[in-house]
């Protein structure tokens, strides 16, 4: 499975250029999409799931043009949108059954078995007869994930899937996606939660203002921050000034002040030590220093 995106552009009627010459190649496995709000992640994903038409450019899935082969490509898709609610009046299993049915599972017995298995996988089997719109926030999210995965889709696009999930659920979800990604499948994960990508994706892209500003392995992004992540022990009086001068990643209260992690080229005037960067540091450093330079 391979998705090739070539110079993709989206200009809205109000002139807003949501995507600018986006080119990517996405191979089998999990692919992370990272970027600040308004970077164009959702626009890109909506295009990939045939909900939106690009202004220009080309998207190919296994050499099939997305615009010309919607029938075939839709048959490969699973999608979880960001703001996902449910048809009222449908039970959990009914909704999943509907999705499975639409994804092409005609045989009733096979479909019901798949539905039950999927409910087990997302931990919703006990709630199978509850009305979908009466599930808790996390359960709804899990049901959303389930409906996107049912029917053995070849491309799964998930937008902020772990929002609202507790840590256990997030871990379970990550594991589920990782497990799925072992098959011949592309999973595109868009998220604000950098940790989700670092722990699951082999490749990723960073979008900013509609452009792909980084495309590669997460480690490469992390490398950008190496030598630029500082840990400073700051007194209470220094803390406010540090916040003003540097991009603070984390603050931990200590007995006599704060232990602050910042991303910066220099910390002149303050004493601190360089620490190993993670993807979050890499993301912040790339956005704040690499891009602006």
């Amino acid at each position, binding site marked *: 499975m391979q998705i090739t995106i070539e110079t993709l552009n989206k200009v809205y009627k109000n002139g807003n250029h949501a995507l600018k010459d986006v080119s990517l190649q996405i191979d089998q496995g999990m692919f992370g999409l990272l970027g600040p709000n308004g970077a164009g992640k959702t626009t890109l994903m909506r295009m990939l799931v045939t909900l939106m038409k690009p202004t220009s450019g080309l998207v190919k899935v296994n050499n099939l043009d997305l615009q010309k082969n919607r029938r075939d490509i839709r048959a490969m898709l699973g999608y979880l949108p960001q703001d996902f609610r449910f048809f009222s*009046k449908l039970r959990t299993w009914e909704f999943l059954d509907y999705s499975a049915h*639409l994804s*092409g599972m005609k045989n009733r017995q096979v479909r019901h078995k798949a539905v039950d298995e999927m409910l087990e996988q997302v931990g919703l089997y006990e709630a199978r007869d509850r009305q979908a719109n009466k599930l808790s926030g996390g359960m709804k999210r899990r049901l959303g994930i389930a409906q996107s995965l049912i029917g053995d889709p070849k491309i799964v696009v998930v937008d902020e899937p772990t929002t609202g999930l507790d840590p256990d659920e997030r871990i379970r979800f990550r594991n589920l996606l990782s497990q799925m990604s072992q098959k011949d499948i592309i999973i595109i994960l868009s998220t604000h939660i950098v940790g989700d990508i670092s722990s699951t994706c082999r490749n990723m892209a960073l979008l900013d203002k509609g452009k792909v500003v980084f495309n590669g392995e997460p480690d490469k992004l992390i490398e950008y921050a190496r030598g630029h992540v500082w840990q400073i022990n700051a007194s209470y009086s220094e803390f406010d000034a540090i916040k003003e001068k540097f991009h603070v990643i984390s603050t931990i209260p200590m007995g006599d002040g704060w232990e602050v992690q910042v991303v910066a080229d220099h910390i002149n005037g303050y004493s601190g030590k360089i620490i190993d960067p993670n993807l979050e540091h890499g993301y912040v450093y790339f956005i704040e220093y690499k891009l602006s330079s």
Partner: protein
Amino acid sequence: MSSFTIIRIVARFEIKTLLRSWFFRIFSILAIIILAFYNVIAMTETGSGLWIFHSIPSSVPYVNMLLLNVIQAVIAVFLASDFLKRDSKLDTTEVIYIRSMTNGVYVLGKTLGIMIVFLGLNFIVLFIAGMINVFVPDVPFSIYPYLWYPLLISLPTLVFIFGLSFLFMVIIKNQAVTFIVLLGYIATTLFFLSGKLHHLFDYMAFTVPLMYSDFVGFGNISEILIHRGIYFFFGLGFIFITILLLRRLPQSKIMTRFSILFSILFILAGLMLGNSYLSRIFGEEELRQQIVELNNKQLSTPLISITQCDIDLTHNEDKIQVGARLILKNNTTETINRYIFTLNPGLDVQSVKSGQNELKFTRDIHLLTVEPVHPLSAQSLDSLTIKYGGVIDERICYLDVDETTKAERKKSGMLTIDKRFAFVSPAYVLLTPESYWYPVAGVSYSSDFPGLHTQQFVQFNLNVTTEKDLFAIAQGKATEQTNGSFSFRSEFPIPQLSLAIGKYEKQSIIVDSIEYNLFILNKHDYFSEYLADLGDTLPVLIREIKQDYERTLNLPYVYSRFSLVEVPVQFTSFQRLWTTGQETVQPEMVLLPEKGSLISDADFKRMKRSEERRIERTNQVVSPKEIQVRMFFRFVTSTFTLGISRTRLPFGGSGMQGPPAISTSSIYSIYPDYYSYLYHLKSDDWPVLNMAMESFLDKGAASTMASMFRGFTGLSQDEKTNLALQGNNLPALMASEDDQSIVYNAIKSKGKSLFTFIQSKVGDEEFDDFLYNMLDENKFSEINIKKFNERLLKEFGFDLKPYIEEWYNNRELPGVLISDINGYKVLDEDRSRFQVTFKISNPEPADGLVVVSFRTFGGGRGMGGGMGGGGGLRIPGMGFAGADHEQIIHIPANHTKEIAILLDAAPRLMSVNTLISKNIPSTLSNIFGTFELDKKAVPFESERLIEYSPDASEPDEIIVDNEDSGFKVIQSGSESALKKLLNISSDEDKEKYVSFRLWRPPLNWQATTNSAFHGKYIRSAYFTKASTGNSIAIWNVEIIEGGYYDVYYYVPELRMRGMRGRGMGGGQGSGQPQEEIKDEYHFSVYHDDGKEEVILGLKNIEYGWNHLGSYYLSPDSAKVELSNESPGRVVIADAVKWVKQ
């Protein structure tokens, strides 16, 4: 997956979602419960049962479908727009949208789902109705209507409203706005547009004629299918447009092209059907115009007379094949070169022969012009054989009836019945003369001479061949009635022939050598069980009713048989200008709607129940047989002899309670069998004279019943006629008046007055002898008006001709004023009698005729004496019901008479019916108080002309009435914006005067009449709902001489039933205690120093002139304004008076 599978999947989940919607559940449960309850009430004795439910099997499913359809149309809008709202607002839909399916299958799946749910509801409602229908006794059941109605009513409605809702939703993208717009559309089509253009806009089929007959099924199935097809295809078209406009990237170009193609095809199909529908309407109008124009052209062609017509008719499926042998006579004084006949345009003429000679003929729509071998000289005979065949084109029928009247909804309750004038179908045939199924000499209706009607008396012989299981009925003696072959030979020359063929059963009884037949459809004998005990009494009853009626008419029944023939409920007839009879009554035959469904008194079950209740209330002991006698008597007299139709109101009201019952002579009155089909007063110049004489002799009819209902309609039919006659003569009225009932009534009223006038000139008994002798001598032949006048001149020295001319051409109307009414007791030898004197004036330049009636209340009240007739009254039908004394008074133009009448009992009420006059109300009433004894008075009776001027008014007095030019109203403009937009006006908006009503007064000033109002001939006032002062009535006056003036306002004393305890507004009703009246009127009186606001409180007020104040007025125009501001319910503007001090 195939498209069909996906459609099924989407539909299945849509059904699940909808069925779990509380909104839909509540609606469905309510609909099911309410309709089940309604069915129980309507079909059982609990709610007295609707007669139409008991008589026509299709009524139950029909009414259920109509009611459900109106409600589901509203709910469907909401639910249909709701699903698109769900789709557009939530990302949830996106997880469905990314699935591999085309937009088409998705929308179609959704539509199918919602459609299945609604059709399921339809099925449940119909199933429950059907179960009640099957298990309730006396309510006939037929399965076909249960299958037809959902397809014809619900399916197209749902497809259309779903399509429209989807389309609006994808365009507007706002559910609330879509819902409001579509609700507005539904309300507009239901309340304002449903009746326009033959129900074209009625997508819910609420007014589309869908009554299903046991005889013929639907009245016009092709028209119904076209109508329903329009909405079905538009709905499908909208659904496919929705597919195109759906906010989802299309998946398949083929599907997109397919959707474009189908939306175009379906919209085109809808448009084509709409065009076809309109073409039928306008095509019919155009054809009818062409026919009338052809008639106009041939009007002056000399008319051949048909003396004998032998018809051989073969009925084959929906066609007839006819051979007609005609014996013709030239009764004119000139040679006739070509014969002109009228024959239904749907019938193709194959050959015309005279002996063995083929004759040349031309066919121009309905006209058949034949060139004889030799021109036919005066008084010579000829014979022709015409072979023709085909279908019957009903468009030729009732050319004299305007399109609006023809298009009026024929309904029973909320059910609409098609109007059919002839039937030729494989299992049923009904042909009356109106369909011109046999050649008739000359032309039919001509707009150049609307009153013209040729009546020829013809010896008819008819042979009919039809299917073996069908039975034929026609006039004349049946000489053969077996195996599909029937022969009829008429014993007299009759003016017309009719034919019915169907699966008839015959019941028969012979009384006094007359054969009384009843022809009904198989299994339609619903009445025998209610009349089972009559047995030997039946002949006696028939004899008595016949003799009573003949005594009233003073005319005999001359036919050998009388048949009641059940015909499809759709069969319709209209009033004509040249006869009181309609097509429902034929020589020796009456055509009754199936199971008497449109006749209230044919509901024997209800009649029996009400009779039993009445007996129980009054503690009488009456045998079941006596009850049956009463029922039979009531049915026969009210339907056939009384001349008043008692149409029962829907939903349990009695026929005497409201406007629908205001009547019009019964259309089943058999009077035409006593006059119209036996006699004909022929006049080339004044053809309406025959109708005049017919009306005069129709002493069974009671036109004044209508005046009892003027409270409902504002004006009685007679008063409307008088208004129409103001400044108009008969020919002008016939040419200009759109409302044919007004013209009909004018001819009848004027006709009665003409012959009453002759009667008053030559003497009652003398004229009766003269007239009935003349009729007896001219049975089944024409009476020429010249001959009539010559005999009148010879026997009485009275020349009618100048009077006829004046009667026909005069545009003036008399006006009647009554004054100086006195009543006192006098001693006449040794007994007390009651003297009434009064002056009656007619200041107008046309002679007047009035009927003065007194009611003493000494005898029985009610209708027992006949509707204004009976009791030895001299002009039955002109006085009020139950009058104890009546007198006709002729008042010459510009004269006053002093009248003295002596009565044996004290009268309580004197009523003066001014007949044809300027007076509105046309009946003036006076209630008498106590009659004091005047010992010196000498009893006398007199009627003498005196010198008297009724117009004499006070010298220093100026009165401005609301009828005067100085009066005007300024409206608030509170008219519905929608009404304005659609240019819609109710019937009431079109009327000059409306009924006075306190319970729902008009928002704008409207004129109304009542004898309590001020006025010379027209006693009227304007009234409006009390409001905030946003509209005013203004009385303007030209002051000639300056000085101080007293200003008065006229407060009328309205005596209206039901006023007690209500906010009276005007407070002018004596029904409400004065102390309860809180109303006040706000006047602005304009004078030299400006204007003064005057408030006139109505509590404890004196009726009549009330003083508003004294003001100095210079020679100029002055005025008084009355605002609509009042704490009461209504404000009445009548008259203002200025009196110089």
